[in-house]
């Protein structure tokens, strides 16, 4: 008897669960989406505290260690297992003929890794001066988990700082596209007529132009004397110029569909204003679709920034983004000798993959009643 009552109450729960609860339940079933979401949360978390997680100052040059390969983290030495991980020092050899540097592990030098250690000074969020890092070695030692670049700068720390730009540019860009897309798509879909026609033609036109050449032209047009912050926003705006089209189409399509629905008609008869109908009745009913589309639009923003910066048309050093870091990898020969220069590319791929996985899961979840 009790068992049966549980059953019916469970069933009732299914029917009265809100749309968001149902979506969340469905989303949780999508393993890849959860995986992607977790990775992204970790990335963004690290990015917020990138000064803390990196091991040193990103502009500090270790002239003794130019193009040093990644140092492996060890737990075992000739004496056996150590709970505290350590890295071996690097021994440099320069080829007398080609001047090529080669590095080997110097087994005699051992630098144990300490956590919450003091290192290079930095300002957390540009506000709090501190020198605590998550991990590092005592001064005198070196730790280059991802190796160093042509000026002997630590690539691990640079990658973490680059993530700050690359990951945020996607969000900011999508935010701009979202606003543009909602406004223009909303106008287009809700009012129809000539306005709709004009906006649709503009969208068709923008979509028919190949994006990268367009971005390239616009990015090249940014004045060279601009400050990095200005360039950053300039690039974001350029990325959104194309980005809003897709969102506007989604908004318009959904609006056209919903405009015919009875509850909108009911609201209209009840004398609600256009603004009220749009914000109170229409927006909530396709918010889930918008979220899905936003998630799927972020990767193209990130890829766009990376491509532009890679070509040297986007962000410029000393600003670091994954694209800027990849500039060093333009030459095949240098990549062949120093493959760790491609690590930023790996981050780009993982991030975009994670966004796509999450977007896919969200898309499935957006239709909870299906």
């Amino acid at each position, binding site marked *: 008897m009790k068992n049966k009552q549980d059953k019916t109450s469970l069933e009732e729960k299914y029917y009265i669960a809100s749309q968001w609860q149902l979506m969340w339940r469905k989303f949780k079933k999508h393993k890849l989406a959860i995986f992607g979401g977790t990775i992204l949360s970790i990335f963004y978390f690290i990015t917020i505290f990138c000064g803390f997680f990196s091991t040193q100052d990103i502009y500090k040059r270790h002239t003794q260690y130019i193009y040093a390969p990644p140092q492996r983290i060890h737990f075992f030495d000739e004496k056996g297992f150590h709970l505290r991980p350590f890295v071996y020092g690097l021994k440099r050899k320069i080829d007398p003929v080609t001047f090529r540097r080669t590095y080997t592990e110097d087994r005699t030098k051992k630098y144990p890794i300490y956590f919450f250690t003091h290192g290079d000074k930095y300002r957390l969020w540009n506000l709090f001066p501190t020198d605590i890092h998550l991990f590092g070695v005592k001064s005198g030692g070196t730790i280059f988990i991802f190796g160093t670049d042509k000026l002997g700068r630590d690539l691990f720390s640079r990658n973490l700082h680059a993530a700050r730009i690359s990951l945020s540019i996607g969000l900011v860009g999508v935010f701009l596209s979202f606003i543009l897309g909602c406004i223009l798509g909303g106008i287009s879909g809700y009012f129809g007529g000539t306005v709709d026609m004009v906006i649709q*033609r503009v969208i*068709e*036109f923008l*979509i*028919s*132009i*190949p*994006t*990268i*050449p*367009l971005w*390239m*032209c*616009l990015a*090249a*047009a940014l*004045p060279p004397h601009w400050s990095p912050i200005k360039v950053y926003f300039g690039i974001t705006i350029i990325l959104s110029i194309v980005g809003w089209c897709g969102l506007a189409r989604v908004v318009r399509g959904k609006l056209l569909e919903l405009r015919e629905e009875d509850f909108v008609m009911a609201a209209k008869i009840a004398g609600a204003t256009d603004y009220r109908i749009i914000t109170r009745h229409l927006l909530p009913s396709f918010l889930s679709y918008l979220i899905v589309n936003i998630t799927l639009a972020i*990767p193209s923003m990130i*890829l766009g920034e*990376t*491509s532009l910066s*890679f*070509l*040297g*048309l986007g962000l410029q050093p000393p600003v670091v983004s994954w694209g800027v870091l*990849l500039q060093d*990898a*333009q030459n*095949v*020969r240098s*990549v*062949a000798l120093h*493959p760790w220069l*491609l690590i930023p*590319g790996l981050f*780009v*791929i*993982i991030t*975009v*993959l994670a966004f*796509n*996985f999450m977007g896919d899961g969200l898309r499935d979840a957006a239709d909870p009643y299906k």
Partner: protein
Amino acid sequence: MVIVLWAVSITAFVIIQLPPGDFLTSYIMKLEASGQIVDEAEIAALRKQYDLDSPIHLQYCKWMWKMLHGDFGKSFEWNRPVRDLIAERLPLTVTISIFTLIFTYLLAIPIGIYSAARQYSIGDYTFTVFGFIGLATPGFLFALILMFFFYRYFGISVGGLFSPQYQLADWSGAKFIDLLKHLPIPVLVIGMAGTAGLIRIMRGCLLDELRKQYVITARAKGVSERRLLFKYPVRVAINPIASTIGWLLPGIVSGQTIVAIVLDLPTVGPLLFRSLVNQDMYLAGSSIMILAFLTVIGTFISDILLVWLDPRIRYEKQAR
């Protein structure tokens, strides 16, 4: 379509006008930097030659007028007519685009059909994973990785479209074969993202289509599964595929631009890039116009194809 092309030309012109200063300012700066004396008279002559002093709308009209007569202006940097520079590279650009398009369809359609017909099979999962990675990898990075791989393990460099001995040679059978040998890698790199996207679309469309009532009707009629797949849903699913040229082609041209820079291909992309860096305005404007033209015309062709494929659209057109 004409309106779109016109809009393209205006955009191209505006884009070119956007950078502060012009070619001559940077030219003067370069001269000054190297310590040379700038001859005012020479500058004035150059200014006149390139019409840099007249108002913008006049510059545009003149530019358009010349363009309609086949005169694309002169490149400041190369000191050659823009038309010749583009004409040299345009055939290869079109060739690569078409080959990539064919490659994309040849690969994506069968895989899409397979994935839909054998949903949740190991093959389907494998292709899905590859598709995701293909979508997530920027073309230039894939090009870099391929180049790195070939250089590291086979010791060959895979850039370019011709072997050195054919680079400047006239067209011949041997040169053509040499081109074909060099094509696969650019085509693979440029086509990857499009192929991955198309597989997903094809699979999605087919799965939707396979669930539709008329497929069930046909099955209830005794039609075999294979025939069911190929006679009905594939036809329907091909439609969106045909209409995807609208975004596939811009994607290919766009991807080609950056991949060509990395792989050092003699196409319009790198030309555009260099002209932008040097603010070589006629060349940049013409390059982007040509690229946009290519995609607009390609899209137009795909629209015609679509009407031809789908009787419903054909019918509506007739009814009008």
